[in-house]
C-alpha cells in the first residue's frame, strides 16, 4: 500500500489546487465508484424524469404548449445522454448502467415517482423540480471530475428555459379562473415537499457527503443547497399570489434566511425504497421503451454491415 501514497497525495493535491481530474488520471478506486454511482444516478434521473411530463405531451392545452413541452422533454433526453457519455469515461458501459437501472440496483431522483395529475403539475415541475435541479447543478459545475463538470455546464445552459416555461404556466394559471388558481395551488401543495427532498438527507445524516466534499465531487452540502432553493423560491411564489404549503415558513432576520418546517423523512425513505406511487411503472415503462427500440438498433447495425460489405465488394 505504501507505494500508493505518493499517487494519492498527488491526487488530493490536484483537488486542493482546484484542478480537475481527467479520465486518464490516477484516481482512488473509491472516487471512481463514488462518481459512477452519483453520475449514473443523475443520468437516470434525467431519463426517468421525462415520464411524468411526457405523459402530458399529448394532452397539452394548446399546440404552443405542446411544442414547448416536447422540446423540454427532448432536452432531458439530451441531458441523460451527456451524463451517460461522461460516466462512461470512468470505465462502465452504457449497457451496464441501463441494466443496473432496470434491476433497481441503481437509483434515480425519487421525485419522479410522484404522479403528474393535472396540467398545473407540468408548470410546478418546471418551476420547482427543475428549479431545485438547477441549484444543485450550478454547484456541480465546479465538481472535481472534468467530464462531469463540463456536462453540468452544458446542462445548465439549457435549464433556465425549463424553469421559465414552467413558471410561465403557473403565471397563466394564477391569472386565470378560480378553478385554474385552485389547480395551480394544488400542484404546489403536492410538489413543494418532494422538491425539498431532492436535495437529500440532512448533512448530519448523509452517508456519502463528507468524503464527497473532501474530493470536491460535491461543492456545497445538501442543507446549504436546500436553503438556497427555499430562499429564492419564496418570492417567486409571492408574485403568483399562491402559497407554499408550510406553516413554519418565515423570514429569519438574524440568519438572513427563511426558516422552514421539517421534511417528512419517512415518506422520503419509503419512496427511495420503492414504495412511491409510480416506482414500478417508471421502470416498467423504461424496460418497455427499451425493448420496443431494439429493432431500430438492430436495423442500424444490419444496414451498416451491408454498407461495409458493398464497400468491400466495390
Amino acid at each position, binding site marked *: 500500500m505504501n507505494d500508493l501514497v505518493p499517487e494519492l497525495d498527488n491526487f488530493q493535491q490536484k483537488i486542493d489546487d482546484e484542478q480537475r481530474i481527467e479520465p486518464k488520471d490516477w484516481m482512488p478506486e473509491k472516487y471512481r465508484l463514488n462518481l459512477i454511482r452519483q453520475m449514473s444516478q443523475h443520468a437516470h434521473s434525467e431519463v426517468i424524469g421525462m415520464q411524468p411530463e411526457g405523459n402530458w405531451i399529448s394532452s397539452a392545452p394548446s399546440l404552443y404548449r405542446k411544442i414547448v413541452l416536447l422540446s423540454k422533454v427532448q432536452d432531458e433526453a439530451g441531458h441523460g445522454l451527456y451524463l451517460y457519455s461522461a460516466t*462512461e469515461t470512468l470505465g462502465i458501459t452504457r449497457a451496464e448502467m441501463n441494466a443496473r437501472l432496470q434491476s433497481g440496483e441503481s437509483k434515480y431522483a425519487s421525485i419522479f415517482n410522484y404522479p403528474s395529475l393535472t396540467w398545473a403539475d407540468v408548470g410546478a415541475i418546471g418551476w420547482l423540480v427543475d428549479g431545485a435541479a438547477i441549484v444543485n447543478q450550478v454547484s456541480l459545475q465546479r465538481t472535481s471530475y472534468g467530464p462531469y463538470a463540463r456536462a453540468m455546464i452544458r446542462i445548465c445552459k439549457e435549464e433556465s428555459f425549463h424553469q421559465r416555461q414552467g413558471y410561465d404556466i403557473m403565471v397563466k394559471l394564477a391569472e386565470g379562473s378560480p378553478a385554474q388558481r385552485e389547480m395551480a395551488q394544488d400542484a404546489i401543495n403536492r410538489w413543494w415537499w418532494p422538491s425539498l427532498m431532492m436535495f437529500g438527507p440532512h448533512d448530519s445524516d448523509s452517508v456519502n457527503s463528507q468524503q464527497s466534499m473532501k474530493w470536491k465531487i460535491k461543492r456545497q452540502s445538501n442543507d446549504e443547497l436546500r436553503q438556497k432553493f427555499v430562499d429564492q423560491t419564496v418570492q417567486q411564489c409571492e408574485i403568483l399570489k399562491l402559497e407554499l404549503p408550510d406553516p413554519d415558513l418565515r423570514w429569519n432576520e438574524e440568519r438572513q434566511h427563511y426558516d422552514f418546517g421539517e421534511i417528512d423523512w419517512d415518506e422520503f425513505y419509503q419512496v427511495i425504497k420503492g414504495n412511491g406511487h409510480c416506482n414500478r411503472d417508471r421502470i416498467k415503462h423504461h424496460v418497455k421503451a427499451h425493448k420496443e427500440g431494439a429493432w431500430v438498433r438492430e436495423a442500424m447495425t444490419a444496414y451498416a454491415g451491408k454498407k461495409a460489405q458493398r464497400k468491400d465488394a466495390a
Partner: protein
Amino acid sequence: MSESTLVLFEVFVRSNRGLDHQHVGSVYASDHEQALVNARDVYIRRGEGVSIWVVKTTDIVASQESDVDTFYDPMDDKAYRHAMSYPMPEGVKNI
C-alpha cells in the same frame, strides 16, 4: 443488451467559424454517418455548432499522465525560447 453492437464515437464540435473543434462528449452509432446525425441531435439543438467531427473512440490514442516528464517538460531551462528573456534598451518602441 442489443446496443452492444453499436459503436462509441467521440464528438468534436466547432462552435463558430474560425474556432477550433472542441470535444463535447460521445454517442453510440452503427457507422460514421449515423454518428454524425446522432451527434447533431444530442449536442446541437440550439446552434451550438457549425461543424461536427466524429471519431471512433477506439481510434483515439491518448498520452498517459505518467508521460508528463518526457512529453510535457516545460523546458524551463530554455528561457531563450521566451521573448521575456531579452531585455530591451530603454526607449525602444513597438517591439
